[in-house]
């Protein structure tokens, strides 16, 4: 029952983030760049609910985003799925209780996601290669994502632990080291 509620919460959070991104962040931008909250959400699912959940939700959210506003079905799905798996890998190797490690995780997954998306766009949609402009956008986006993570860190930590208890029970090791 509780697991069902958690899944409903993930989907509602996704929809809220989608409308936030469309209506609020299209206006509230840093240097004309908006953050990518979906990377943070999928990383969060991968970190606290495990690798397979991260992968599943990454692919589902990615396909939905591609259907809503994408140009080709699948690009966002692949990259968000990979972010989910990366969340699972981070979970095994790092502690989630430090603000700094969580920030570093957000930074690295944002960078991996954006470079992956840009590479896919270059290959599939025959994008122009503009490395310098891309680097500027990436930098601003990373900063924006960090700020949002810092603001929501207490919430992430609190809800994350209860999700982790539900999904892993007494198999949680990282918290005690």
């Amino acid at each position, binding site marked *: 029952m509780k697991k069902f509620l958690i899944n409903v919460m993930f989907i509602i959070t996704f929809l809220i983030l989608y409308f936030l991104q469309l*209506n609020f962040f299209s206006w509230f931008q840093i240097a004309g760049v908006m953050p990518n909250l979906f990377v943070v959400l999928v990383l969060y699912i991968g970190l606290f609910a495990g690798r397979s959940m991260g992968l599943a939700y990454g692919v589902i959210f990615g396909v939905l*985003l591609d259907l809503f506003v*994408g*140009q080709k079905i*699948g690009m966002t799905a692949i990259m968000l799925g990979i972010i989910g798996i990366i969340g699972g890998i981070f979970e095994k190797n790092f502690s989630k209780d430090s603000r700094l490690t969580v920030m570093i995780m957000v930074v690295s997954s944002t960078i991996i996601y954006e470079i992956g998306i840009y590479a896919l766009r270059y290959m599939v949609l025959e994008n122009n290669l503009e490395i310098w402009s891309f680097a500027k956008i990436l930098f601003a986006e990373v900063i924006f994502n960090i700020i949002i993570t810092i603001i929501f860190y207490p919430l992430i930590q609190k809800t994350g632990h209860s999700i982790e208890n539900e999904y892993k029970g007494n198999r949680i090791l990282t918290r005690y080291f």
Partner: protein
Amino acid sequence: MYKDKKSGAFGIFITVVILIILVLLTNTDNSNLSAFENAASNLVTPIQNGLTYLKNKVSGNNDFTTNINNLQAENEELKKRNSELEQDLRELETIKTENTTLKEYLNLTEKYGDYTTVPADVINRDISNYSKIIIINIGSDNGIAEGMTVIADQGLVGHVISVTNSTAKVQTIVDSASSVSSLMSTTRDSIVCKGTLDDISTLKAMYIPTEAQIIQGDSIETSGIGGIYPKGIHIGTVSRVVNTDNSIDRYAIINTAVDFGKLETVLVITNQ
């Protein structure tokens, strides 16, 4: 590589999923997926419509408190201006008829006036920093199909890349994956205008012929080559030319006629 049976099966599952997605990605024609797209857009469009309506209401109420005196003076001035404009219009009418006869002599067909268009509102913009897709509030129910050209009052906006019953996705010309085959209107040299990541109001004109003369402020229009856009739609004006050591890869920056930051209503050409 895999330690036990379970993680081995999981690894195979991931590989299969990724391969299936790759196959989908490279082979699908978006039109086959429009059933899913319909379902997805039905889920979010009502909420988005409401939010857009609210946003427009709030931003439209700025001049609510303008006083009547101002309005009267303005009315007076506008009436005067109206009569002047009517006078101008009559003059232009004569010039227009003269122009058409002259064009007929030259065997040129004026196509721009023959398009039938359907007006639409922009209800969504893209949420990624790289692509500049817009979503409009009319779809296949209003006779919109994939590949139709979208224009605004000032010039070219883009083309429709996928349609649902009540919405359509439009790839704008400033999208970094878009390229438009175009002409410089005075010299008739053909160039290709590509979208850039830097700005939503500039295009990069590439593949300029080495002997071509580029004039600053020259107007750029579509050439009709490639079959996506019809011929002769205004795109923008040349703002500056960037010369490189090698004249083959010099390029020009073009300001688009349409202001993509404030784009609210567009027209879809249904009979190109």
